[in-house]
């Protein structure tokens, strides 16, 4: 095993935005990226999550993948608030194109236009897509 370097990150707070563009269950990205969101929050970074494109399906209410033998990870989104991740953005254009309404979501989100989200993205230090 190699030696593990430790970087000096003391007191630095950066803007981390997770860019969630994929549908749940078809691939594992939405599940695994969520673990990373929680860790960034635990490191006390200024963490936000943007749901756009098929990513808006990640927070659809009523998910039940039991018959597939898979885990329903959508309740974890509700746990984000407990980690102070309250900046959850949904792009309006993506939501509308998919026939979804705010009532369809398992968490409280802020619906923003593509132009607003573009501005928010441009303000970040770190953008993580998965």
């Amino acid at each position, binding site marked *: 095993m190699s030696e593990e370097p430790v970087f000096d990150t003391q007191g630095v707070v950066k803007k981390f935005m997770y860019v969630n563009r994929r549908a749940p269950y078809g691939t594992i990205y939405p599940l695994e990226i969520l673990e990373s969101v929680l860790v960034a929050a635990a490191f006390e970074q200024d963490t936000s999550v943007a749901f756009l494109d098929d990513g808006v399906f990640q927070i659809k209410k009523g998910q*039940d993948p039991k018959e597939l033998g898979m885990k329903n990870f959508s309740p974890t989104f509700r746990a984000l608030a407990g980690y102070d991740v309250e900046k959850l953005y949904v792009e309006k254009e993506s939501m509308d194109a*998919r026939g979804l309404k705010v009532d369809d979501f398992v968490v409280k989100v802020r619906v923003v236009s593509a132009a607003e989200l573009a501005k928010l993205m441009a303000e970040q230090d770190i953008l993580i897509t998965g």
Partner: protein
Amino acid sequence: MLHTVNKSPFERNTLDSCLRLAVPGSAILLIEDGVYAALAGTAQTAKVEAAAKTHEIYVLGPDLKARGFEESRLIGGVKVVDYGGFVDLAVAKGTVNSWL
């Protein structure tokens, strides 16, 4: 023939290719992320409704349920099948093409 489509029509071109290359009368089964194509009231609905006039459209129930959608949100005329129904379609319809 049976065609399966496993990708979201919002993300990829596979459904378009399937609709272009499926001879009239063949069956199309939407599985995995492909099930989103079966929803009413989306930007893809009109295309799928038009396709339903010349093709039998099926959707895999367990995949729909996993993603949190009830049958009431589906386009009229789309039939829901379980994995047993998927097997029956593969038996009944002849050669299967998976649009990957």
